[in-house]
């Protein structure tokens, strides 16, 4: 006797089913399910669809509010913008990376000691290097490599003098408490999904760190060693494999001045700057190498971070990069889920952050600042995200909780000022190019002029180049005040458009980096200095007010949903969709609804 436990209800439903439903009807419903639910319909859903009372319009409206719908639209813009950075961009500022050396402890057992390469120390034998010496350990510590030599027990006295024990953030959720006790345990897998330190980072309840790295001060004073500078070929000081850091021009000029420990300048020039409370300003690496393993991270997240695929150990630089990319995805999803004005993608100052991003914005963005710009007096970077706007409830381990940041600050402008965008598209021209391409559906295609040798420095005039650069250069100028391959803001108060000190033959180092001697102004600004002062928000305004903006959105969305390029025959339809989009307040829901209920969507992809 056959048991039709699940099939009989379906047959019963079929009895009251709409007999007139045809194959195209089912194909249409399947297409809707794929695009709006992110998966084909189930048998139960198909059975419901066949019922006579099924309201397809209501079904569409319901599914234009879900996460699958938002993810479908997000995919369109992620495909256009490709907001993820690959291995060619390694984010390993020495100020952030706590590397780990293995030595022999006083008891003869292996002992890990964490340190920052480049950490300033008063002791010339260890300044800028690991805090324990050959004399302490019997080992040499070549840069970014495992130690060499025969280890011997580190004397307890040396260990106590040069290192301290810390309860770090990656082991204790309450690391800021006077006595942290909320230590990582089994339940953390559910509490903080995706937070999986690798390489034995979780083995010890306390970690041993070089004393200088464990310092918690927010500011230090500029340190000058007074050592004579070591030139190439000079003998190295005893016990060192690398020369100690020379006193920079900035250090000599600013000796004793206060400097922020959150900036790269503070790290490079003060012996009082460490990794902060619970080492919260640093990322742990399970080894001494350049990009040491840090976390188990998914290689790909095709269906979202909640459903990870394989997660092998990755270099520590992948940790912030993963969350930069997730920030952009979440930002796009939020615009679509809340059916906000799509122009917000470029103009909004809001975002969402989770624990790792809050930690990054609060403690780490300054690590790439300020290089030679410190010589111009810029040692405390002006943030792209105001740390005061970040939610305080998030701990660095909290990967799953995303909280809104209503206003990132005056320089923020949609995705244009997110770290993922600014590092994925490192040059100012690349940033402008991809924005124009994705949001105005225009590209820069060179004309057929034969390039001839030219000394014309102005690309808007140089024959052959001018075709594209007449348009591109003024757009690139909007990014003048954001450093290339970085997010460091170059404020007008410190970096005026032209700088008298940067004229002439012998100029400070920062002039060469930031100012274009040919045009006597900040680099990339020459084609439109006024754009430089408007910043990325100016570009956002130019893009969203361009007549091509709305038709381009329509084109991108319609092409993706139809699975084909729009043809000239589609122009009247495109025009009507553009009107629907604009009249609907630039919201996606009316646009997508108009597309998926149109005959073109319903019939256009039937096989010929």
């Amino acid at each position, binding site marked *: 006797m*056959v*048991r*039709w*436990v*699940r*099939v009989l209800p379906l047959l019963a439903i*079929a009895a009251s089913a709409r007999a007139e439903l*045809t*194959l195209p009807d*089912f*194909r249409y*419903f*399947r*297409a809707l*399910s*794929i695009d709006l639910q*992110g*998966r*084909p*319909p*189930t*048998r139960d859903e*198909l059975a419901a669809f*066949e019922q006579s009372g099924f309201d397809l319009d209501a079904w569409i409206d319901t599914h234009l509010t879900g996460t699958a719908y938002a*993810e479908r639209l997000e*995919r369109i813009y*992620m*495909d256009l913008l*490709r*907001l*993820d*950075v*690959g*291995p060619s961009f390694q984010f390993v500022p020495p100020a952030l990376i706590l590397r780990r050396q293995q030595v022999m402890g006083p008891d003869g057992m292996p002992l890990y000691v964490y340190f920052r390469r480049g950490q300033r120390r008063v002791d010339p034998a260890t300044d800028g290097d690991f805090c324990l010496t050959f004399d302490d350990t019997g080992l040499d510590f070549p840069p970014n490599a495992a130690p060499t030599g025969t280890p011997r027990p580190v004397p307890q006295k040396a260990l106590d003098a040069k290192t301290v024990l810390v309860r770090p953030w990656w082991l204790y959720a309450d690391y800021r408490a006077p006595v942290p006790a909320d230590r990582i345990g089994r339940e953390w897998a559910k509490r903080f999904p995706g937070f999986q330190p690798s390489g034995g980072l979780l083995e010890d309840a306390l970690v041993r760190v070089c004393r200088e790295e464990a310092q918690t001060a927010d500011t230090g004073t500029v340190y000058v060693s007074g050592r004579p500078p070591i030139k190439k070929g000079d003998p190295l000081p005893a016990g060192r494999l690398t020369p100690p850091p020379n006193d920079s021009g900035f250090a000599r000029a600013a000796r004793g001045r206060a400097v922020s420990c959150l900036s790269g300048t503070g790290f490079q020039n003060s012996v009082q700057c460490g990794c902060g409370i619970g080492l919260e300003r640093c990322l742990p690496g399970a080894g001494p190498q350049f990009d040491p393993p840090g976390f188990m991270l998914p*290689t*790909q997240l*095709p*269906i979202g971070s909640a*459903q*990870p*695929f*394989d997660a092998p150990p990755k270099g520590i630089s992948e940790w912030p990069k993963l969350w930069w*990319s997730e920030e952009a995805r979440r930002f796009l999803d939020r615009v679509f889920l809340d059916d906000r004005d799509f122009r917000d993608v470029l103009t909004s100052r809001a975002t969402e952050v989770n624990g790792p991003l809050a930690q990054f914005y609060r403690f780490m963005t300054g690590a790439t600042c300020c290089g030679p710009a410190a010589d111009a007096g810029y040692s405390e970077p002006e943030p792209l995200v105001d740390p005061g706007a970040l939610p305080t409830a998030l701990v660095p381990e909290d990967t799953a909780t995303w909280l809104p940041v209503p206003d990132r600050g005056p320089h923020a402008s949609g995705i244009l000022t997110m770290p993922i965008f600014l590092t994925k598209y490192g040059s100012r021209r690349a940033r402008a190019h991809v924005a124009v391409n994705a949001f105005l559906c225009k590209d820069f295609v060179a004309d057929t002029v034969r390039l001839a040798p030219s000394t014309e420095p102005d690309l808007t005039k140089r024959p052959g180049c001018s075709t594209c650069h007449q348009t591109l250069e003024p757009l690139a100028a909007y990014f003048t005040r954001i450093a290339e391959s970085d997010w460091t803001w170059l404020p007008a108060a410190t970096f005026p458009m032209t700088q008298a000190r940067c004229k002439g033959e012998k100029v400070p180092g920062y002039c060469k980096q930031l100012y274009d001697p040919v045009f006597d102004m900040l680099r990339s600004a020459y084609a439109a200095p006024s754009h430089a002062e408007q910043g990325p928000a100016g570009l956002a305004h130019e893009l969203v007010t361009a007549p091509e903006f709305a038709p381009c959105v329509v084109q991108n969305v319609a092409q993706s949903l*139809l*699975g*084909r390029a*729009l*043809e000239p*025959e*589609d122009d009247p339809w495109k025009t009507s969709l553009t009107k629907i989009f604009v009249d609907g307040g630039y919201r996606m829901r009316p646009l997508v609804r108009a597309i998926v209920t149109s*005959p*073109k969507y319903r*019939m*256009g*992809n*039937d*096989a*010929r």
Partner: protein
Amino acid sequence: MRARRLVLAGRLVLAGVLALAACGASTVAPSRPVPLPAAHQVVLDTTPKERRRMLPPEVYLRAYLGWFGGLAPIDVQNRARPKGLFDAWDDYLSALGLPDYKLDLPRQGQTNTLMLATLGRLGEALCVRAAEHDLHARTPLAQRVVFAFDPVPAPSLDDFRTRFDVLHTTFLGYPLRLAPADRVAKFYALYGDVAARHRAKNPLSPDETAWAAVCTALVQHPEAELY
């Protein structure tokens, strides 16, 4: 003799042509164009069309995980791996046509042989595992993930049709009654062939193996991979 006749015939033709020319030339006026009579009228659909779209790999993966019983990706891998049905997701993901934003590799809009082979391999892993779970383990109907019917040994065509309809609807998204007329016969033949060639338990029975094959064929069907 024959040559003389030919010469004579040629002279007669020439004489005829000259006589006609002497009578004066008459012109033949072209007739007025007249539309051809309509045999039947066809309405042309001039809207732009393309072949059906490829199922986005994200959708395929989500559907696949659902067909596997709503498991997480890592759980699918762990469940299918031990019997050599599956290697690791990383071996398959890029072949499915997913974009790689890190490397600026775009989404693939068309299938290729590697992709089809990957889809086939994934389908096989799903269907064999589902046959083990649903049919071989005699899982209660309410808990079955794919084969939501009770199988009968060596089913008749009618027995096969009703059960095949469940799989058909699951994977292709419409009931069997709307499918091409020869579909049931083709899949019934496949079922028979596979069952006949798998007489030994391996560990699935011949009928279970045949259902797994039917399932695999449906997962790999162009209608399952396009929309």
